[in-house]
Structures are given as C-alpha cells and as structure tokens.
C-alpha cells in the first residue's frame, strides 16, 4: 500500500471532518503517531456512542477548557446559514441559532455547554451528536473506507 492510496483513503473518510487532526493528536505533539491513529480510527469505525460523544465534544471544545462556550458555538456555526441579502445583520441569524442550541442543550443554564449537558442532550436526541458541524465520517464513506481497506488486506499480505 503506497502513500497515495492511504491519502485517498483517509481523504475519503475524513472529507467532512474539519478538526480531525486536533481530535487525533492526543498528546498535542503536533503529529499523529501510530497509537493515536489507531485509536482515532477505532472511534471512527467502531466507536460506541460514548466514545463518539467524547470525541465530538473534544472537537467542539475549541479551546479545550471543558466547555463549549457561546463564542465557540458562534464560530462553528457562522457559516451554517446562507447569507441572505435582505438581512440587515447576517450574524443575527447565527446568534439566534446559538441561542436556540443553548436553550435545547444547556440543561444547567449556565450559558455554556459542559460535557454533561452535551451528553444528556445527545442521549435524548442522537441527531445532536454532531450538533456543531460534521466531525465523524458518514456511514457511507465509512463503508467505502472499510471495503477499500479490507480489499487491500491482500496487499498487506503481499508485502
């Protein structure tokens, strides 16, 4: 298996995932080592809901302080609405969206999302797992990835 193939594979898997690297690089040393890579893949492909929640929360918690703050939400959602020319304040919709999300997920009403808040909301409604943007591979690309990898097992053996 050559580099190109691997790149194609991971591209395929991670095309939706913006903060992939940060999620994988646990020790923050700036590169993903083998165990980090394996761990990451495990979450991606075989992760339980808990593992996935944990992973997603870490991705969403941009500054790593254990909370998803309003500002972080705003940042993540700012491109989620189509700009409408008639709107006076294009940010207003985003702000509103953040408020809606908080209302839905912030169970202790402290204006930010703790992991507990997040977990509770996701358990109520699994759709909210990737509430602030896609960060897990969608099942289709996951399947493609797997077929690709398992097909290439023979390549491994050949080597």
């Amino acid at each position, binding site marked *: 298996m050559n580099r190109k193939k691997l790149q194609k594979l991971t591209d395929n898997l991670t095309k939706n995932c913006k903060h992939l690297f940060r999620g994988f690089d646990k020790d923050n040393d700036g590169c993903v080592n083998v165990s980090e890579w394996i761990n990451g893949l495990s979450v991606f492909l075989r992760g339980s809901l808990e593992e996935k929640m944990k992973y997603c929360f870490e991705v969403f918690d941009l500054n790593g302080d254990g909370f998803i703050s309003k500002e972080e939400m705003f940042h993540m959602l700012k491109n*989620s609405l189509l700009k409408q020319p008639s709107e006076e304040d294009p940010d207003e919709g985003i702000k509103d969206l953040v408020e809606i999300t908080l209302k839905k997920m912030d169970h202790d009403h402290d204006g930010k999302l703790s992991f507990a808040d997040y977990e509770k909301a996701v358990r109520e409604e699994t*759709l909210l797992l990737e509430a602030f943007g896609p960060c897990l591979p969608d099942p289709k690309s996951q399947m493609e990835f797997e077929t690709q990898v398992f097909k290439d097992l023979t390549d491994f053996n050949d080597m």
Partner: protein
Amino acid sequence: MGVALTRSAQWTAAGYGTGTLESTPLNEEILKEIIVFVEHFIYKYPHEAKFVFVEPLEWNTDLEPSAFESGYIVSETTVKSEEVDKNGQPLLLLSVPQIKVRSFGQLAHFLFIAKDTKLKEAQACIEGNRDPVVKILGSEFGEMKEDSMALNILNKISTDDDPENEIKMKIAILLKQLDLHLLNHSLKYISLQINLNPKTVKKDIELLQRFSGKGEQTVLESIEYTSDYEFTNGCRAPPWRQMYGEICYVLVKPHDVEALCITCSAEGVFLNGGKTDEEGDIDYERKGEVYKDLVTFLKEKSAVFSENMSRQENISNEEQKNQIEEVLTKEEAAVPQKAISSSDRLKKNHINFVKTQMSKRLEPSLNWRAKVDFKDKNLTKDSQEEKHGGKVEKSRTSISHGKVQLRKSVDKIEETISESSSESEEDEEQPDHRQEANADLPSEYWQIQKLVKYLKGGNQTATVIALCSMKDFNLAQETCQLAIRDVGGLEVLINLLDTDEVKCKIGSLKILKEISHNPQIRRNIVDLGGLPIMVNILDSPYKSLKCLAAETIANVAKFKRARRAVRQHGGITKLVALLDCAQNATEPAQSSLYETRDVEVARCGALALWSCSKSYSNKEAIRKAGGIPLLARLLKTSHENMLIPVVGTLQECASEENYRAAIKAERIIENLVKNLNSENEQLQEHCAMAIYQCAEDEETRDLVRLHGGLKPLASLLNNTKNKELLAAVTGAIWKCSISKENVIKFREYKAIETLVGLLTDQPEEVLVNVVGALGECCQEHENRVIVRRCGGIQPLVNLLVGINQALLVNVTKAVGACAVEPENMAIIDRLDGVRLLWSLLKNPHPDVKASAAWALCPCIENAKDAGEMVRSFVGGLELVVNLLKSDNKEVLASVCAAITNIAKDQENLAVITDHGVVPLLSKLANTNNDNLRRHLAEAVSRCCMWGRNRVAFGEHRAVAPLVRYLKSNDTNVHRATAQALYQLSEDADNCITMHENGAVKLLLDMVGSPDQELQEAAAGCISNIRRLALATEKARYT
C-alpha cells in the same frame, strides 16, 4: 404625496392609525422614489429646503446618536442640529429613539447619515406620519384634494403676499408633483401585474362559449376566435401583432347589438376595426376604450349580456368560482409572469399609454388606478382577507371619495369575493383554518416561522439544530401543526426527505411523524407528493430511517387517496419486506447511530400495513407480496406493541375470503387465541375482531374451540367497561356459536347468562352481536330455557322496536328461536311480541322482513289460540299475502312458511283465500330455489284444505311445475311436494295433469324413500291417481 401614500402604498391593516407598510416590491419602489425626491430637494431647491415645517415629522429611529457628526451637537442619548429656526429651536432633534425633523434640508441630511438603513428609516417616517403634507404645510393644505389643489394654491398666492406663504405654495406644488410622480410610478408597477395573459383570456372565452348559443337564457349568441391557430405561448394573434401585446381577436355576437370584433391584449380588451374584407384581415386599430377584461367589456356593450350573465353567475357559481380562483392565483404569482415574450416592448408601450392618459385626463385615469390598485391590494393579500368582510368594508370607506364609478367597482369585487368564499366549503376549509391561526397568533407561530427560515437557509448543521428545536414544540397541538404548514414548513420538511443527508431526513421524519396525526396535515403531505419520497426511503439502508418512514406512512395513510398513493408507488411490497427483518435473533448491539432493532423495523412496517390494509386493493397487494406468512411469523413473538399492528392488519384483511383461507392455512388462529389471554385490551380486541371475521368458516370455528379460545372469550364478556372490546368479543362469540359444539362449551362457561345480562344498556354494536349470539344459542332447548330463566325474553322483545337493521334481523331471529319453546311463547305473547314482529313485516329492508316472517312461524305454531291472535291483527293477513309479490327469494320463502302456519286455522285460511293467496302462490311455482320450493309446496298443501282451492291451483297452472320439484335433489322439497301433490290429487283434473307430466314414475321412486312422511304422501298421491284411472276405465266399460 398624500394621495399616493394613502391609496397606492400597501398598508398591512386597512384603516389609519397603527398600520405599517407591508414590505412589498411596490412599497419599496414608492419609498425609494420618496428618498430620491428628498435627497435631490436640497440641491434643486436650496431655498425651499430651509423652510421650517409647521409641525415636525416624528418617528422612532434605529440610528445611534454616534452616527451624527459635524453640524450636530451630540450627547449620549440626544442629538441637536446646529441649524436652528427663528425661535432657536434645532431643526433636528433626536432623543433616542425618537427623532423630530423640521426641514427638508435636515431630512436630506438625515437620510445621508442613515446610509444603508435609508429605506427602513423612510418607512418608519412614513408610518409615523400618516399625513406628511399636513405636518409640513399646515392643516389647510391637507384639506385640498387633487385638482382643486392647484386652484387653491393660485388663490392663496393672489390673495396673500407673505413671502413665507409663497415658499409654502412652492413646496405644495412640488409635493403635488411628487405625488403625481409616485402615482405614475406605482401605476407602472401595478400595470405589470394586472396584465391579462393568454391563459386567463382563454379561460374567459371558454367559459363564455359554454353559455352561448341560441335562445333567451344564454349570455351571447356566439363567441369565437378569428383564428384557429394557437401559438405555443397561448396567443392567437399573428406574431407581428403579439409584439404589441395582443393575445387574440374574438368575434362576439351578442343578443341585442351588432357583432363585435374585439382585441384581447395584455393591456386589456378593446373594440378593433373589425374585419376589413372577405379575406378575414382585421383592422387592428383600437376603436374604443380599453376594459380590464372580456366580461367587463361585454357587460358595457350589451345589456342582455350583463343581465343574463348575472343570472348565469348564480347558476354557474362553480365555474365562476374556479375562474376567480384562477385569477387569484394568477395575481398572486403575477410578478414572475411576464405575460408575453416581448415584454420589454410591451412595457414601454404601456408606459406611454399610461402617461398620455394621465396627462390628458387626470380624473378618469386616477379612478382607474385606484380601482385596479384596490383590487390588486385585496387579491395579493393571500386571499386571506376575503373572509374578513369587515376589513374589506373598511378599506372601502377609506378609499371612497364619493366617486360612483369607483364604488361600483368595489362593490363588484366584493360581490365576487363573497361569492367565491361561500361556495364550496371543502375547498375553503384550508384558508379557513389559516385564518383562525392568524386571528391570534401564538408565540409558537413566530418561533416556528423562524425555525423554518433556518431550515430553508441553513446548511445541514443548522438544519439539524432547527429540526431538533422544532421537535421540542408540542407537535401534538394543532396550532403548532398548522403553524408549521402555514409558514411553508411542510414543503421544506418534505424536500429534506429528498436529500442525501441522513440526519436531516431522520429529523424531518420525526417531525412529520408527529404532525401527521392531524388529518389536514395528512392531506397536505399527500398533496405535496410526500408519500412517494417516503416510500423510497423504505429502501434506505438505515433502519431507523425505515422505521420513521413507515411510521409516518402509517399516520398518513389514514385516508383513501393516500393509501392508493402508497400502493401505486410500490409501497406495499416494500412494507411487506420490512416485516421480513425480524429473523436473525442474534443481532449486534446498536452498531451505528442509525441502527435500531429489526423488531422495531418490523413493527413499524406492520403499523403502516395496518393503515394501508383498510383498502381492498391494498389487502390484495399485501397478500400478493407474501405478507401473510410474514404476519403469521410475527404473530409468534410476544411483544405487545408488535402484536397489535400485526393482528390489526390481519383483522382488516380477514374480511376477504382468500385471506381467511390463508389465515387458516398459516395456522394463525392458534396464535390469535393465545393472544386473547394477553393483558392488553387493545390486543384482545383486535384478536377477537380477527376471530369474528374468520369464524364465518366452520373449520375455523372448530379451530378456535380446539385451541381453547372459547373460554377466554367467555371470560372477556365480564369486561363491560371497554365497549370496543366488548363488541369484538361478542362478535366472536356470535360467529363461534354457529357451531353446535361451541354452543355447548359456551353453556359450560355460563356465557349465555352473561350474554342475557348484556341485553340492556349497551351500544348497538354490542347489542347486535349479543343478540346474534343468543339467536344461535337458542337453537338448543337447554339454552332457550336458560334465556327464559335469566329473564332474557323481555329485553329481547323490547329490542323489536329498534331501527337498526342488523340488530332487527338478529333480534327477530332470536325471538323466533325462543318462541319454539311454548313457555317462552307465552311470555312473548304476553309482551305483545307477535304484534311487534308482525309490524316488522312492513320494514323496508327485505332482510328484516324475511327474518320477521321466519320468526312468526314458531310463534303462530306455539301460541295458544293462534288463530284468534292472528285475526286480531287488523290488516295483518292481507299484509302477509301481499308480501308474496316481493321479489326477494328469502322473503318469499319465509312468507310461504308463515302462510303455512297461518293456514292451519280454517278461518284464517278462508280469509287469505279471499285475499287471493292461491293465484299468488301459483305464480311463484316456477322457481328453482329449493328453499322457496319447499316452503311454497308446504303452503300449497295447506291451502288446499279450503273450498275449491285445489281446483283453483289447477286452474292457475301450479300443478305441472310442482311435479318438476320432484326432480330436485333436496328431500325436504320432495316431502313437501309429495304432500302438496297428494292434496292436489283429490281433484281429477290435477291428477290428469300430474300423469301427463310423468309424476307417477317419480312418485313411485319416492315411495321407496326412507322418509316416512314422504312415503306416505307419495303413496297417497299415487293411489289417488290410480283410483281416478280405474274409475275412468270403469266408466268406459260400463
């Protein structure tokens, strides 16, 4: 400015005061024009710009004080202009948020500062100052109207020398010019919208054609196009004329005036020069005024037309309504409709036309504008306002400046509107509801509207958030359901189903599933084509998606059209396929986000099939798709929420014969019986219903017994609270008790006593079944005794006065069954039950008649003094005899049986003979129905006992057909016939007829029958015939 603002600007709520400007393109246009006017004012008329208004223009601004720079004294919350008036007051004063401006200069300056929010500020200003002219110039100017204004101004100038007044005048004239300009401008705008287009013209003409022809009643003698060729854009005018916006030319022959050659163009309808010569060329030149449409034009031209039209309007409200609706939708969607390809050209043309009109004759032109504008205003308001007669009324008064023509047109519009809204309630139902929702919009409405906006304009992340948030509303509440629909949410939700985003689809379905509990929403979903999409989702690899889709289909498919749609899009097969999932017992735990258990999928599939199975064709489709074995397999599971839809589906389907066979074959009964013991009443109910449906078949009844189903049924009778369950259970008992063995079991379980207890205070559905069951049970002596002992006869007889057909059939049967017991009969007689039964012979339903007649037989047989009793019913015997004229075989057979019993009494036999029973019976003789043959023959044999009836039967040719009865396969028929022939053979002529028809040989065979009575009768008959033969021989030789 005033006129344009009051009339052409589209205010949200008619009437003055708190109204706000609607954000329509037209209003925007007007506001822009005003802004341009004000901004240029300062350059064009610097002197006038300094003029201080009589009163300041006040409104609430969004502008921050910090936005003001040089030339202003700015503090934190207030701004004053450095420019002051004579008294030292600042010409602009802002104290957040209110602002007061007192000169055009400041106004222009302010707009300059406002920059991007100019439009908004201008709008706020106009909204805040409904009569700016008065504020600027003083009240005397507000009084002036249109044409008189110029005169007034001149007057003022000549009488007054005050320099300030001069400026005032100048400003007044400038404002007046602006006003005209605005009107012109909005007119341009409006005129684009109200253009006729080929479609409406065509509709008009088609409609008129339908009401044209010879005769007084029609609206026109004829109306036809000059050209048969229709271009693809719908026009019939030649292309070079289409450039001028002309659509087609029509030749109209009204009743009272000469033929008219009319041009229908996008601008309106007008008279043209007519055909110039034989070749059919048309003089395209306009020869008359332009009218807004064909009908208006013709109404003006022909009195007969207008008179007949109004008459036709009443007759053809339906068409009119459609037409008007058509126009309504047209008008609503007018903007994108550039009626004709050469629209640019047209526009120019039109502007010219309008301008010349305006300058030449201001008055009529204004009228026209106002008229059109008003109409436009109403129509564009989403047809909602139609209902509010009050609102229309109000805006009318606001606009009526005593111009007759205007008012007339308003009245007319109002008339047509009220016409269209009152016509068909079905169609109007929906706007109606929107209306209510509008009446007091709850806060949810706005929140939902906002969410739908995000659904529309967001990427998938935003969409998912909006969907989740929407799900938190109380979607079971109608306001929310309708709110989602009214803000256009349904379309978006259904569109989402068509995307590739799994999460969006799931979220959308979760909402659709909830709101589709509302019948209106169901219809909307079907109208929007939601079902095919959902059916497609059933193929999705994600199980939770499949589940949700199936559940939503289950909700939507509650009405016929939806069920048909599901079937036509192949939904049934897919739903049946869902049932197949629940096979692998060893499932991995939720492997992915979108997985659920297979059982769940099957459950949802069954749920959807249940809804669908209410249509006959769907039942067929389910069977063809192999649904029955799958349902049978699912029936073996023990999940209640799975079993209910499964049994529900089976119960629906069991109404079909081939289903019942399949159900038997699949050994489903066993499981149904098992589930009768469940705790869940709903499940019990559906099982009982299914048994009720299936137990028509004898084998099934035996199966129910063999699987021990009778005991749970009997014990369920004690649950009298749940009426649906009770109805189902009693139904099952009724059908099961058709088998004798089952009846014995029921007696063991004391079910009969319980059933008698259920004869009172129950809904009809229960009563029908209870009485039916008792009717079957009372075929046995023991049970009849039990019924009597439990006091069941009285309530049964009481039920004879009901009106429910099914109930009456069962009650008469039960009463008849009871009457077999003489002791029971005594009670029935005492309760006057026979009279009640007798009166049921007059019931219009043949089933009831027949059943009553059958019931009368045992009554007459077992009553004491039966003959006396029968005679006591005035007109009763005549009634019975006349029933022989019925054409229902069952009625005839039953009445024959009754006559047999009646005729046992000599006196009564005499009476019915007088009523002509013999010819009537004879007429029936030629029948092939064995049941009728038997009872007919019995009746004949009874009736022979009186006077010369034997001879009469012979005369009415009843004998020969009777002989043929002997060829039947039914021993009962044989016996009865032989007895009848025996009686008839007392008459010599009859013997001859019998002999001629080969009776002797047939009867000889009967003599060898094991049936004693038959033997005897046959032998008797033969001996009669033989004796006659001997006598004749004897007579010959002596």
